[in-house]
């Protein structure tokens, strides 16, 4: 790790949502942890790229993280999704295992070394998906008790119809899970997609206060959203 980047930064304790990983309870970090949540095609990835470049240009060490990227089972989940045979609880635990692996092996080490970690999605997407599938919120909340709280948490909120347009611009078809087809919401795939995206968005609204989620209007154009996010992040970095 580059020692120069971490010089002069103060160590601080991390905060968890519930029962932390016992051997990580007292871990101290120097970096900052920023999460961007939002549905597929909400512009998350583009925004993370733009923010990363700007932060790096300003001299910060930046590391990107995201769901389904762990060495342990990132590939495995992709396989499982193709076969459509796993139950909701099984899928949920699979994602949790993948997430835990990334948290322990990637996110926490980077934060200890003083990096700004930008995470493309985090546990809230997983909890929202579980909630609309009927899994109890208290169960999910406990499951992710070992997750550390981000310093900043944004949710890119985009109208489901606008999302559908963006999908069709890129692909000719809607994704099975992103349309909630496993929930049997509608015979019509587009309708199913819209209903499902609304349910997820509603879950995010419900979680807003509990998890200090900052909603960002994602219907605007890329640069407008970027200026908005960058301003909030800069404000946070100068005051902390």
């Amino acid at each position, binding site marked *: 790790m580059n020692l120069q980047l971490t010089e002069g930064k103060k160590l601080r304790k991390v905060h968890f949502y*519930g*029962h*932390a*990983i*016992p*051997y990580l309870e007292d871990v101290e970090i120097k970096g900052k942890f920023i999460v961007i949540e939002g549905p597929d095609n909400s512009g998350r990835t583009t925004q993370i790229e733009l923010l990363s470049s700007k932060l790096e240009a300003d001299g910060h060490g930046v590391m990107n993280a995201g769901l389904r990227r*762990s*060495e*342990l*089972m990132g*590939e*495995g*989940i992709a*396989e*499982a999704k193709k*076969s459509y*045979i*796993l*139950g*909701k*609880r*099984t899928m*949920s*635990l*699979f994602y*949790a*295992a993948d997430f*835990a*692996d990334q948290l*322990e*092996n990637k996110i926490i080490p980077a934060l200890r070394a003083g990096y700004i970690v930008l995470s493309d999605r985090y546990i809230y997407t997983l909890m929202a998906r579980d909630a*609309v*599938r*009927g*899994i*109890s919120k208290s*169960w999910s909340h*406990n*499951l992710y*008790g*070992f997750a550390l709280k981000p310093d900043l948490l944004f949710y890119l909120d985009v109208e489901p119809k606008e999302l559908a347009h963006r999908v069709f611009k890129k692909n000719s078809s809607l994704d099975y899970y992103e349309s909630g087809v496993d*929930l*049997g*919401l509608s015979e019509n795939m587009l309708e199913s997609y819209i*209903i499902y995206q609304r*349910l997820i968005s509603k879950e995010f609204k419900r979680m807003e206060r509990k998890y200090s989620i900052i909603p960002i209007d994602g219907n605007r154009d890329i640069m407008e959203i970027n200026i908005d996010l960058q301003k909030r992040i800069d404000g946070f970095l100068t005051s902390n």
Partner: protein
Amino acid sequence: MAIEKMDIRKEMEGKLIVVEGIDGSGKSTQIRLLEKWFRSREIPVFLTEWNSSDTVKQITSKGKKKGTLTPITFSLLHATDFADRYERNILPLLHAGYVVLADRYIYTAYARDITRGCNPEWVKKVYEFAVKPDITFYFSVHVDIAVERILSGRPKLKYYEAGMDLNLSNDPYESYRIFQSRIIDQYNSMVSSENFVVVDGTMEIEESQKFLRSHAMKLFEPSSINSRRSISV
């Protein structure tokens, strides 16, 4: 809500019989004999083993080879395996009236994960979705006897099997022994709270089986058949 509320209460017709205990305690031999017994009586029966979901195994084997598992990921991978068997086999078969025999159940996860340092309440809540067994037979045996049974052939112990991730000893055999004795401590702490039926793991095979069958028989007495439980799905 576009989907119906999922916590409909359902009647369970089947019976769930579980065996627990450390490796070498004799439980697997006994549950296989129970399976034969049910089959010979033409009672629909299904046997499920810990860490045996093919789907999950295929997906995780790559990861297991590549990465080092931490206590949390280790715990969650086993929970995923359990959930897959639970959602696809155990629960539907219980609803269909089967006798489901489980060679290890949630108590194995409690014992191992807590020994590895996971928070006990966290682990218990993760497995909260699983229905409690009708009977749990706990095979109690002194650690030296069980370890001797397993190690007499000097098998090659796997890293996690020997508890090497806990840094108990550099010698895998010594590590295994310490790890198993800690798991026994965890089991012992659950005996009364989880209503374990304790089986003396040093009994002769025939004697043990007689004991298990006499207990299992009670589940099929008229009074017991009428007292159906309900569980949430």
